[in-house]
């Protein structure tokens, strides 16, 4: 039945008939003609299959190529403090030229100097602030001269006498005015006051708080 020799030969004959040379030619003709019948241009299909576009040329095709020069601008300026920091004085000129100067505080003191309290010369202590006294002029003439050592806080030995060191330059007479004297150096105590300590510590706390807060913001960003 299924293994009848004649039946198998018929099947093989059918296969050979299908894949004969004539059948192949007919199939190729159909493959060529059917697309043209459907309206597809054969030559374009063949050309598309043949030529492979270069990947880099495809990239170049979609771009306006290099960036045009000379017209670039950035739309986002830096923040104002940094703009102020990079001002014209820092960019254009070579060395750094400050735009503002902060002067140290100038303390004005009345030019009339307090005279020495010579009523107690034995203590040898020169006080910083001496109340202005009305000196009996003429009686203590050698002590009225260029004031040295006032305000320096120095301690003078007990047996020290100003008459040994300072010659009486200006004879003290009522009709001769006293010469102008240089201002005394300011007195800075070595140990800061408690209020100064508190101010400094509050400043450090403020700095630390600001830094901590800024770090937190940056971590979140």
């Amino acid at each position, binding site marked *: 039945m299924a293994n009848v020799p004649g039946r198998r030969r018929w099947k093989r004959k059918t296969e050979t008939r299908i894949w004969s040379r004539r059948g192949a030619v007919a199939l190729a003709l159909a493959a060529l003609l059917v697309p043209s019948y459907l309206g597809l241009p054969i030559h374009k299909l063949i050309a598309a299959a043949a030529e*492979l*576009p*270069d*990947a*880099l040329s*495809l*990239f*170049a*095709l*979609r*771009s*306006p*190529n*290099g*960036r*045009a*020069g000379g*017209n*670039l*601008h*950035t*739309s*986002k*300026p*830096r*923040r104002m403090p940094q703009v102020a920091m990079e001002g014209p004085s820092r960019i254009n000129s070579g060395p750094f030229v400050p735009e503002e100067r902060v002067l140290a505080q100038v303390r004005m003191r009345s030019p009339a100097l307090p005279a020495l309290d010579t009523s107690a010369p034995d203590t040898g202590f020169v006080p910083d602030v001496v109340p202005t006294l009305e000196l009996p002029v003429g009686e203590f003439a050698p002590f009225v001269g260029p004031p040295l050592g006032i305000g320096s806080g120095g301690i003078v030995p007990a047996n020290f006498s100003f008459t040994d060191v300072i010659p009486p330059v200006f004879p003290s007479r009522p009709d001769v005015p006293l010469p102008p004297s240089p201002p005394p150096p300011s007195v800075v105590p070595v140990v800061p006051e408690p209020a100064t300590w508190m101010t400094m510590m509050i400043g450090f706390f403020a700095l630390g708080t600001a830094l901590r807060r800024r770090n937190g*913001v*940056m971590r979140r*960003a």
Partner: protein
Amino acid sequence: MVPPDSSVRIAFPRGRHPRIALPDGSSREIASLLRVDRAMRYGEFRWNDLPRAGPIWVRIDLAHQLISVFRGGDEIGTALVLFGADGKPTPTGVFPVLSKSKQHRSTQYDAEMPHALWLTRDGVAIHASQVRYGSATHGCIGVPPAFAQRLFDVISPRDLVAILPDHSAR
């Protein structure tokens, strides 16, 4: 497998995939590119994602002002980009994405930079920007906002971004 739409992308036949070089010396095989038949305008982009798995990587060509997003060998997005001007050039090389920020506000430039993909630790990122003719950045890569959102959604940290140098650099 979904057959590629020939009107959207140009598929290279199997076995004839071109390879494009990356700045670190390696090269990648390209299976298909998006079909863009003319020069794109600034702010314009193409996006056509494929429903298949594959590593996301990005090629940025400064000489052509182009960004191309690939999934495996297939290009899924392209756009024109902004990049750094002379004083602050964009670094070139292959960078893994360090992290992503959906809404980043730059404290340095006081500007919104949404959908930022951080490339370097000193602040260079791919972020949304107004891509216009004649504009430049301070070193970042600026992409159109809608493109930045799509790229942000598909890319993940440690994906590679290759930035090719600008040969026309002045």
